[in-house]
């Protein structure tokens, strides 16, 4: 074999190895994308589908986020809706009470700057951007207290912006809900 030949074949080998690796890389990526699509569609773990707006300077005057409408509410179908707002440097309500093993819709917004809601030990995690309403579905499988810090810098008091979530059993929640109105665990 001449030197020319070995040179030619080594070029070929190199190109083949490289092509193979490229194929593996592409397969890894396609598999990842399919997995994400599957989880998103099949298990319905999609982010919030719709964009809803609201005027932060009028939150306290009218509409969904007036003070008397904040907190947890038992719906006719047994589900629960929680409405909350974030403002420098607290959440209202500061303590959210919800039943265990129940589909819950969290609807929240900000009254001033960007905040975030994160419930520790769960995958509940959303931004609160003033002007827009964040909606997240959640379901707790364990009763107990959870910390709920603000997860985005919102100016000099950010480190003090911690709320709480109290997950109680269903009968406890149903009893609390009997009186009507919006529930919270502030001061308990």
């Amino acid at each position, binding site marked *: 074999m001449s030197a020319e030949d070995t040179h030619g074949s080594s070029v070929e080998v190199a190109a083949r190895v490289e092509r193979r690796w490229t194929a593996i890389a592409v397969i890894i990526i396609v598999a990842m994308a399919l997995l994400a699509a599957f989880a998103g569609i099949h298990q319905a773990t999609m982010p919030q589908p719709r964009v809803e707006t609201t005027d932060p300077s009028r939150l306290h005057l009218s509409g969904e986020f007036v003070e008397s409408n904040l907190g947890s509410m038992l719906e006719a179908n047994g589900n629960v809706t929680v409405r909350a707002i974030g403002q420098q440097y607290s959440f209202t309500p500061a303590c959210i009470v919800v039943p265990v093993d129940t589909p819950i819709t969290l609807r929240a917004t900000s009254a001033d700057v960007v905040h975030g809601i994160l419930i520790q030990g769960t995958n509940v*995690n959303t931004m609160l951007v003033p002007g827009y309403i964040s909606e997240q579905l959640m379901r707790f499988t364990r009763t107990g207290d959870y910390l709920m810090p603000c997860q985005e810098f919102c100016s000099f008091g950010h480190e003090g912006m911690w709320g709480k979530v109290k997950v109680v059993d269903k009968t406890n929640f149903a009893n609390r809900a009997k009186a009507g109105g919006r529930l919270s665990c502030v001061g308990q």
Partner: protein
Amino acid sequence: MLVNRKLILAHFWLAFGVFGVALTLGAWQMFIRSPIGTWLSNPELYYRSLTAHGTVMGYVFPTLVAMGFGYAIAESALEQRLVGVRWAWTGFWLIVVGSVMAVIPIALGRASVLYTFYPPLIGNLFYYLGVVLVVVGSWIWVALMSINLRVWRKAHPGAPVPLAMFANVAGSYLWAWTAVGAALELLLQIIPVAAGLKNTIDAGLARIFFSWTLHAIVYFWLMPTYIAYYTIVPRAIGGRVYSDAMARISFILFLVVAMPIGMHHTFADPQVGAGFKFIHSAFTALVALPTLLTVFTICASVEIAARLRGGRGMFGWIRALPWDNPMMLALAFSFVMLGFGGAGGLINMSYQLDTTIHNTQWITGHFHLIFGGAIVIMYFAIAYDLWPHLTGRELVDIRLIRTQLWLWFIGMIVTTFPWHWVGILGMPRRMAYFDFSDPAIAPQALSVTFSVIGGFILLASGIMFIIILARGMRAPQADAGAYRFALAVHQPTTVPVALNTHALWVALMIALTITNYGYPILNLATAAGTSVPAVYVGAQ
């Protein structure tokens, strides 16, 4: 042929000087918010420090490194004198003036908006103007890179552009275009409000503009590191680049797919619907491709070096590598950190998994590992490699260099692994203070303490780095010869036009940005009633 050494040295010294200051602030932040440092009576100081640390590490430091390295590449890879030296100095001074202008309001507590400056929080006007000047300074560099390449092409019609310059110019175009997002946010939205001309702002739109910058800026940070992987490492360890064409394809892919994916930073945001989030998530998967190709090509190039040194066997060649060579060490450390960081990145990019770690300390742990670790360790390596050529003096402290690299690697692992862990436990980021006496937070205390130790190791390593470079300025004179880049196994004599020019790919980059960003931006910009009152920092 490094003629304008002073220019390049000025960029590097300013870069590493501000890096040293910001590193010290970083170590202080880590310490002060930990269980062993609870005496901060004024939490506001933390946010001043954090704004300075983030602004310097995110904008000023990497930009200066890319610029200095870019000028070095333009002169040495093209083997021609830099065209536009006076403009280059103008760019440099714009960055100096911009940095000073930004840092004064930060130090006074008038611009504690952090480097992401999310409105409607609004800081002092001069902070934003300073950032704009830094970006404008860097745009001069982009123009110069393009002009210098054009001058070279005229003199060498049809010749393959040297890989280092091809990649460098690709990186500069990527930066020029990705900075447009933040520039639009600053010029159209924030600056009018900071100047008092308006008092409302669309916070959702601002976040979308910022996301346009926020992802691809990461690849701009990465560019010098990747250029070093391909064009310095193989030469420094006595190997060859496995494939010149594959290298070009990787840089082209970065240029095209790094841009239209930034909305993966807004998975948890209410102002974009699920559709565009999904599209950006899918495109994000694509951006792993150039990195996977790079890992292959670099490992293969390193293997060539080992076999040339007599390495044998399936894995036995690894022992034959020049492990006492700082470049080899830096590359190995960088790859290990890139591997761990990349695995973490796969978690961030999937919006199902992202919900558990979004805006937690996991994120800060993640980007310190990738950016502060995998990327910055190669900045060190670049500086060590170029220094003798810039100063005309030998770097004699090889042992010290090895120790410095080891410490950076160990420090980064010790800092970031526990940092990721507390993120999984749900510890939020950007907080000046944590109540570790709360039983729900107490379990995080030990991990945070480990991170503090890691932070001090990093600080020690950073100081060593600066000492080594400073001593290098005084070492005995020695001629280092011409600065050269690695050759490919098959050094190209001709390259297809598509792999030798950028125009097509720049057009594709812009087109993809428009398809992936055009509709959401128009939609938000034309929606009525989404502007909210500005909240001025320091006005409360």
